[in-house]
């Protein structure tokens, strides 16, 4: 009896592990920042280097922080989605322009439209390290008090926005004191 049962049980167990393991995306690493205060930063603004953009700028309302660069194909891919989110006007989008040429960044926003309220220029990638960014695009949802609520890795699309992120944003806004 055992002779037949054990190999089958072992096989079923293996299939279980494989089903779980193969359906996970190893490139999506959960962020340890979730539920914690966003790492503070203050960077020169892309539009006007004399101004600063940072955690203080974003505080006070539920906001998105989108990490991007002109060198990043996924960022161009999600640009239309960001434009649509900005046009809907529900949640303001801030940008972290990561290790990019500011001139190229400004040019891309002129050509493709600018969905960002403001952009911080992270020329050496130091702020991105604090945020645990390892590949653009990455998008963080922040509560009004600056808590990190959600992190999306990879290009956004309207489906992800409407199903995963917007409900969390609206919920966070309701809980806002």
């Amino acid at each position, binding site marked *: *009896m*055992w*002779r037949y049962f054990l190999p089958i049980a072992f096989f079923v167990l293996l299939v279980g592990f494989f089903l779980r393991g193969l359906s996970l995306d*190893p*490139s999506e*690493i*959960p*962020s*340890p*920042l979730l539920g914690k205060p966003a790492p503070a930063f203050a960077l020169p603004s892309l539009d006007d280097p004399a101004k600063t953009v940072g955690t203080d700028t974003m505080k006070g309302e539920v906001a998105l922080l989108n990490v991007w660069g002109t060198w990043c194909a996924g960022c161009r891919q999600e640009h239309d989605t960001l434009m649509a989110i900005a046009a809907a006007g529900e949640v303001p989008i801030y940008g972290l322009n990561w*290790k990019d040429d500011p001139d190229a960044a400004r040019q891309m926003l002129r050509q493709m439209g600018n969905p960002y309220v403001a952009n911080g220029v992270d020329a*050496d*990638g*130091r702020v*991105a*390290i*604090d*945020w*645990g960014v*390892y*590949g653009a695009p990455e998008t963080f949802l922040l509560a009004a008090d600056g808590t990190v609520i959600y992190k999306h890795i990879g290009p956004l699309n309207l489906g992800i926005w409407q199903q995963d992120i917007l409900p969390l944003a609206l919920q966070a806004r309701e809980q806002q004191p």
Partner: protein
Amino acid sequence: MIRILAARIFATIAIAGMLASGAAFAIDSSEDFEDPRMQARYEKLTAELRCLVCQNQTIADSNAGLAVDLRRETRQMLLDGKTDDQIRTFMVERYGNFVLYRPPVDSNTLLLWGAPAILLLGGAIVAAVVIRRRAGMKFDDEEGDELAHEESNA
């Protein structure tokens, strides 16, 4: 035959030569620390931190932009007098335990760390059962029959 042997010897020498001159192929082009102990710590740390974009390489192995940045960060923290643990904690706070090639034992990694022991134990049990059964069959046919009999009842 001799030709194959010669080819093998040649391949072995070539590989040994490549390994010996590893420094010449080093990815990390930054300057060495003045203090050799500091350099050793730097090399150890960068060899146990994962490059998250390339996943199966350490930050010492990779020239991805992020790996370069994290090496620079590690270097700076060493120069600032941070301990190895402080540097590891810095990385874990930002990237999670996945950044460590040697993750700590916790509820998530218990199976990972325990698997070798479990597999060894399982193998030992199987080996013991097989050996006992074979021993029974070889020297005492009666006992071997009994064992088979017991099993079919189980």
